């Protein structure tokens, strides 16, 4: 009976090769001896040693992590408060769409809109403007994730907590947040990864003095590719693979609580 699925099986195998061949090539070339990033010469770990002393890569990496951490914290706070509010007021479709729209708006449109706005209010471009911009679309993702769960929570538990004399703060931290935990973790992982990877919006809203990692990678690709990009690509691959797998594990654990 499985004969009829043969063609789709062949395509599926091709797709897996298609998805993994390019990144495998990058990983392979990261162990290359040659100083040409594209041509294989022999095995070596040299570029793994030199990358740590590459100042532009290291300082831009720190900036990227900084932006991603601040963006994640802000998006979680803003996204969660919006979700709690919308849930309490039984908000209709408009406010829900409004709060999640930045996730759907093409990044280029949002990017030049923000660039224009920062220029109109005379805010000079820096990491602050990148953080604001990233928080806009990450908030939308947090709202989407948290709203999906918050509707499932039984409001009578919160009411009982209040009736029994718990303060609003205590109810929030002891009742609401623990119940939202899986979606908060998902929202945090999403925000962090999206911010770390984001290029187009950061490209338009960042100042020239504080390039983040994607900007450095972009100019490395455009102007003279150095072998370090293969190493960097491999390290980023490992980070995101570990991140995705960790997120899945944490998600499972959090779901079971």
């Amino acid at each position, binding site marked *: 009976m499985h004969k009829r699925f043969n063609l789709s099986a062949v395509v599926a195998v091709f797709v897996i090769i298609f998805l993994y061949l390019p*990144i495998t090539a*990058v990983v392979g070339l990261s162990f290359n001896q040659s100083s040409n990033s594209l041509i294989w010469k022999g095995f070596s770990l040299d570029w793994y040693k030199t990358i740590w002393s590459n100042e532009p890569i290291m300082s831009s990496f720190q900036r990227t992590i900084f932006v991603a951490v601040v963006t994640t914290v802000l998006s979680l706070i803003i996204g969660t*408060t919006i979700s709690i*509010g919308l849930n309490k007021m039984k908000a209709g479709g408009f406010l829900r769409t409004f709060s999640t729209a930045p996730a759907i708006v093409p990044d280029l449109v949002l990017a*030049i809109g923000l660039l224009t706005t920062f220029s109109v209010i005379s805010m000079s471009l820096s990491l602050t403007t990148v953080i604001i911009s990233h928080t806009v679309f990450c908030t939308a993702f947090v709202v989407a994730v948290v709203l999906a769960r918050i509707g499932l929570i039984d409001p009578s538990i919160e009411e009982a907590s209040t009736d029994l004399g718990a303060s609003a703060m205590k109810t929030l931290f002891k009742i609401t947040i623990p119940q939202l935990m899986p979606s908060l973790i998902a929202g945090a992982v999403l925000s962090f*990864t999206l911010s770390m990877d984001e290029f187009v919006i950061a490209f338009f809203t960042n100042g020239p003095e504080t390039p983040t990692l994607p900007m450095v*990678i972009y100019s490395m690709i*455009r102007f003279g590719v150095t072998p370090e990009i293969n190493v960097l690509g491999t390290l*980023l691959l490992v980070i995101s693979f570990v991140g995705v797998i960790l997120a899945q594990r944490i998600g499972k654990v959090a779901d079971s609580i």
Partner: protein
Amino acid sequence: MVKSGGSKTSRHLGWAWASPGLIFLTLFAAIPVLSMLFMSVLTAGRFGGVTTPINFDNFSRATDPIFVKVIINSLLIASATAILSLLIGFPTALFISRLSRKWQVILIVAIILPYWTNFLVRTYAWLVLLNNEGIINKFLRNIGLIDKPIEMLYTPAAVIVGMTYLYLPLMILPIYAALEKVDKNLTEAAFDLGSSAWKSLRTISIPLAMPGILIGFIFVFVPSLGNFVVPELLGGGKTVMIGNLVRDQFLKARDWPFGATFALILALILVVLISIQSYVSKRVNVNA
């Protein structure tokens, strides 16, 4: 039952919670996007920035054959990307949806995993594969198929393949999600009743997957149409798309209103497309 959520205090409390965030989104999402779209009717200032006369000059400038060609070119490349993704994404999703639960999870994770890698690195990977000394050319030379390298990089085809690579998971996932809900007994029954593989595909799987196909098409088409990085890196600047026009008008020519005009055109194309998608998927749902 008392509808506690609808009470007045609860609504006030809800607004108190939500308004700081909603104000933030108004200031840094709604106003920027709307003002950017409005900017298309303004005129570029002498030293960057914008000034008044409000007119539609930018739109008549945009109808210049050079720009029309770029817009058509962008539509063709984005369509080709979405169609190629559909052609290889649909069979893959179909295949995965028919595996055991455990293998479904493994393969879906395998398909998402590369998507979480930095998109510049994934684009760069194709430079590695497609360049004249790259793996594909070397392989073809070693098996004696060619003796001179094929120029694959810096062509529209490289742009299409690169973007398909970037966005393919966004095609596979919604189709898989739609197919996964399909009752397997349905296709089994069709088969038992003598229906050919092609017929059961055409009459059962494709119609049921249609909502997923439409969403996948949008998910791939939208980021492809506005992309300026892939045309630049894999197209070598020879393939110009709307995104490149917007970028150049903003950062090189410093004609923001003209750049905003192209962004508006981009946004309008997407709005039309999404309206078609929701119209078609409603009709499909009614028929199904």
